[in-house]
């Protein structure tokens, strides 16, 4: 049974990989995937601490997060599809209408 430390390291790694994806991916779908990884890192943390403290409320929070993540992905993909319809691209570099 690995200790809390191992879980936290894994979660941090997953979070860092997700953040890296968000920052470097040029494809909007890839960015969404990165966000998913970051959210799952959070879930790992929640579950690890719930287990450490023997408190089921942490599990409950993880469930909520999963549900909301699903909704978020649905909305995010819908936005990506609309952007594609309008701009004929989902390349993040070319989505710069707000450039100053």
């Amino acid at each position, binding site marked *: 049974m690995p200790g809390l430390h191992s879980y936290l390291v894994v979660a941090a790694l997953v979070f860092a990989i997700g953040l890296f994806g968000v920052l470097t991916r040029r494809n909007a779908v890839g960015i969404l995937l990165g966000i998913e990884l970051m959210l799952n890192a959070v879930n790992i943390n929640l579950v690890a601490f719930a287990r450490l403290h023997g408190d089921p409320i942490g599990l409950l929070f993880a469930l909520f997060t999963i549900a909301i993540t699903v909704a978020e992905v649905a909305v995010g993909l819908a936005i990506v599809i609309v952007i594609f319809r309008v701009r004929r691209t989902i390349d993040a570099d070319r989505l710069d209408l*707000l*450039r100053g």
Partner: protein
Amino acid sequence: MDKPLVVLALPFAVFLLLSLAAPLRRRGVLAGWVSTAATAAAFVTALVIWRDGARGSLIVPWLPGDGGPMATVGLLLDGLSAPMLVLVTLVSLLVQVYSLAYLDDEPPRSLGRYYVYQSLFAFSMLGLVLSPTYLQMFVFWELVGLCSYLLIGFWYTRPAAARAAVKAFWTTKLGDLGFVAGIVMLWSNTGTFEFEALFRMAKDQTLPLEGLTTIMFLIYLGAVGKSAQFPLHVWLPDAMEGPTPVSALIHAATMVTAGVFLVARSEPLLVLVPAVLTIVARVGAFTALLAATMACVESDIKRVLAYSTVSQLGYMLAAAGAGAAAAGFFHLLTHGVFKALLFLGAGAVIHAVGTNDIFRMGGLWRFMPHTGIVFIAGTLALAGVWPLAGFFSKEAILEGVVAGGRPGVFVALAVTAFLTAFYMFRVVFITFFGPGHPHGDTHPPHDPPWLMRGPLWLLAALTVAIGVRFVIGAPGDHHPPVWLTVLSLALAGGGIALAWAMYGTGVIPVELVRRPLATIDFLARRRYFLDAIYGGIYRGLMLGFSRVVGWIDRYVVDGILNVCSAWSLRAGDALRRIQSGQAQDYVYGVAFGVLLLLVWARWWRTP
């Protein structure tokens, strides 16, 4: 004190009526007759006041103050103001009658405007004369200045007239600055503006003498501007751009003498400060001489008269400065009559030949005998020939100057008397007896209509009558020394003889006299470069200063602003670039920021 109030109220009522009732004003001639009728009534009332010899004052509080009014207004009728009332209303009346004919080719609209100004002027001048306080005098002083400005610029579409009006206004304002500063200082020293209170204090020797020299000098500066004394005399010759009757009324008989009136009025205070009196006398004598030399070379008939007026005003003030203010005031009255006569006569000549240049007139005696006779009567009076009015007032001044112990002033005035006779008869000989110029056979010049001839004859008769009155017996039966009488007659005769020899017969060629006096001739023809100096001062000092201010505004003030705005633009442009519009960049910023916060919280934060 009802009658002076009536005299004052009549022109004011006409002014209000004409300025408010536009249909009446636009009728022109009708407005003129209304104004003339009111002035005639005022003149009769003034005459009654003068005959009655009524004296008195009426004072009502004006500005409230702690413990009694701060300033008062009212009327003061005394030996100075009563004759002035008669002079002002008389000349106003005659000028208004004369103007009806002189300005007959003006459109009715502007003729109505002319009479609005005329009645406002009559009101203001009467108010000035009747003022019992310095403050009220200053108010009316400025009002007559305004009327002068309006009437010089009556033909405001002519650039020369508009320029002359502005010049007159500003030049006199320069003196008025001193006047207003002086009366305010006097008030802060004594707490009153009232003449009677001030004179009482002067008599009881309770007047604070501290700073009085400065105060009286400042008040005298007002007279320097208004009465065209050197070095502020430059506006009066230019003021001749106005209609000739205006020149006769304002710039010869009444307004310009306000300065003399002021000095005569302030005499009880002036005698306490001999230094100022010396200045008044010397500046007056210098002005008299300077203006007389300029009159000798002028070829514009109105300008000759204007310089003559400057010269005579210098005469009056020199008398006042020498302690003979009564003689100066007497000369003011007689001069008002015969100088108005001369101006109106010149107006008749100008009206007939259509030019101001005396060398383009000539031989007018045959065509205009009436005008010629009255003009010569006025000229003789101005030259100081017995038994006309000017002789007695001029002699009184010379006597007063001798009695005041000012030999330098006396010599200057004596030379001026000689020059006066010379330049006036120069005009007469050239204009009326000089070689006749072809005036065109169809329209030879002719005497003016009776509306103009009447005032001329009346003034001429008055000039003679005043003289005759003094021949019969001067009031108080006072006789000046015989040598003075002989001297003044000799000076006048000499001037007339020289003018006759040079311009009447040509016995003495003009060049013969001009050559030894080439320097003075050169300077006088260029008005002693005073206008050029003022122009230079204006251009050099005012425009130079303005240029410096303009440079500072353009390059320093605007420069600072421009640099600030340029920096703002640059900074904005630089900052604009961080708004890439790409969501990933923002996320990168947030992530990096959070990382920084973490590092700071973990290692740098002091517990």
